[in-house]
């Protein structure tokens, strides 16, 4: 479904994605791991056709995704229907005067048909039923995250890109969301820096460090490998002088 070959993407003369190649099959559930600034958000925006690389090529379902390709309205609408992104910065994603209108924003723009039942299911899962008439910007951080998530889930794309979707959610909603994502037919790429939640979000882990893929394989193999965790920056070691020993621990 997704084929990236030798992608080099730089911003402000700084290389963000460096010779990155990856391929994703249909219905795969991928967890994108990496410490802050490793390039996770940039990669997701790139896969969503919002920013473009200086080198390499990106194919989505065989189609080469370029700025020119997305300039054509038909291509733009079809691609947006099939590939949807939840931004890490939720405030940037909200554009409507009520939660209800926010939920219908993409559906109406892209001409997607959704049954009332499907919309109700997502609203109920995220507990938004009593917030439908609220101004999205007046909601708390967690509630805004739920609204933005609902907006993306209602598009029901073939490729679901979620950037830190659980960062502001409480345990109960996180669990429901994980179950919901697992039940979807869509391919998903979910970024997180939580090693605890990673095994629940997917089977395959892609780990980034300084814009490069340093691991591509099973999630459990990664989170249980001390050396790999250390290489990716998830573990640190320091001298505990009082005890006179070196130790390392999970972040």
């Amino acid at each position, binding site marked *: 479904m997704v084929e990236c070959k030798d992608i080099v993407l730089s911003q402000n003369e700084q290389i963000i994605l460096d010779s990155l190649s990856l391929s994703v099959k249909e219905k795969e559930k991928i967890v994108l791991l990496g410490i802050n600034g490793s390039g996770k958000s940039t990669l997701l925006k790139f896969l969503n056709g919002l920013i473009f690389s200086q080198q390499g090529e990106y194919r989505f379902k065989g189609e080469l995704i370029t700025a020119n390709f997305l300039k054509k309205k038909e291509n733009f609408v079809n691609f947006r229907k099939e590939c949807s992104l939840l931004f890490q910065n939720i405030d940037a994603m909200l*554009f409507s005067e009520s939660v209800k209108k926010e939920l219908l924003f993409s559906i109406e723009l892209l001409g997607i048909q959704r049954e009332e039942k499907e919309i109700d299911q997502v609203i109920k899962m995220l507990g938004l039923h009593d917030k439908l008439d609220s101004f999205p910007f007046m909601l708390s951080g967690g509630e805004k995250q739920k609204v933005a998530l609902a907006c993306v889930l209602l598009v029901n794309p073939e490729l679901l890109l979620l950037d830190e979707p659980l960062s502001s959610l409480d345990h109960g909603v996180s669990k429901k969301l994980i179950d919901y994502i697992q039940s979807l037919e869509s391919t998903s790429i979910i970024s997180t820096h939580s090693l605890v939640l990673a095994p629940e979000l997917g089977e395959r882990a892609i780990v980034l460090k300084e814009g490069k893929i340093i691991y591509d394989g099973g999630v459990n193999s990664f989170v249980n490998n001390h050396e790999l965790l250390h290489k990716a920056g998830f573990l640190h070691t320091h001298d505990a002088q009082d005890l006179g020993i070196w130790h390392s621990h999970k972040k």
Partner: protein
Amino acid sequence: MDRFSDFFISKVLLVILIATLIFTASSSSMMLFGILSVIAFLISKERFYVLKFTFFAVFIFSFFVAFINGIFIYYLTGHIDLTQQIIFVWRSFVLTYLTISFINRFGIVGVFGITKEIRLFIVLFLAKKELFIRILKESYEAAASRGMNTKSFSDTLRLIASLAVTLFHKALLLSKENNLALRSRGYYG
């Protein structure tokens, strides 16, 4: 067809509103003002809220203007025509009451036929205002918590100066992200 009929209805409503306002503005009939006030009351969706809002927003202000006006007229002519002053207050009240009731019933979009782009601009403006007020409030609290003397004018001024730069950068970054998110969510325009 739906979009066309919405557009057509909004234009008709706007013509009706403007015609009524012009007619009211050129009249001095107390009876007409009374009838129009009753119509405005019946049109508005949240009747008592709109009435209360208009009363406080306009009646008191107009009353104050009429009072000042009265003093000047008395100074110039030596007498006050009270009816003239009452008509002035009544008229400004009716003009505002009618406009607000129309908007309350049909919405700004309905009356003025605002396009989707202008609506988006208004929502983004309100959203940014809300966000920046929150940032300002939190920054003020954080500065106080980090030792700023909130009663000191110079400290407050210094904080405002540094926040202006921060807010400018945040606005710039947010606008870029907004643009990407709009496209990501299917906005082609």
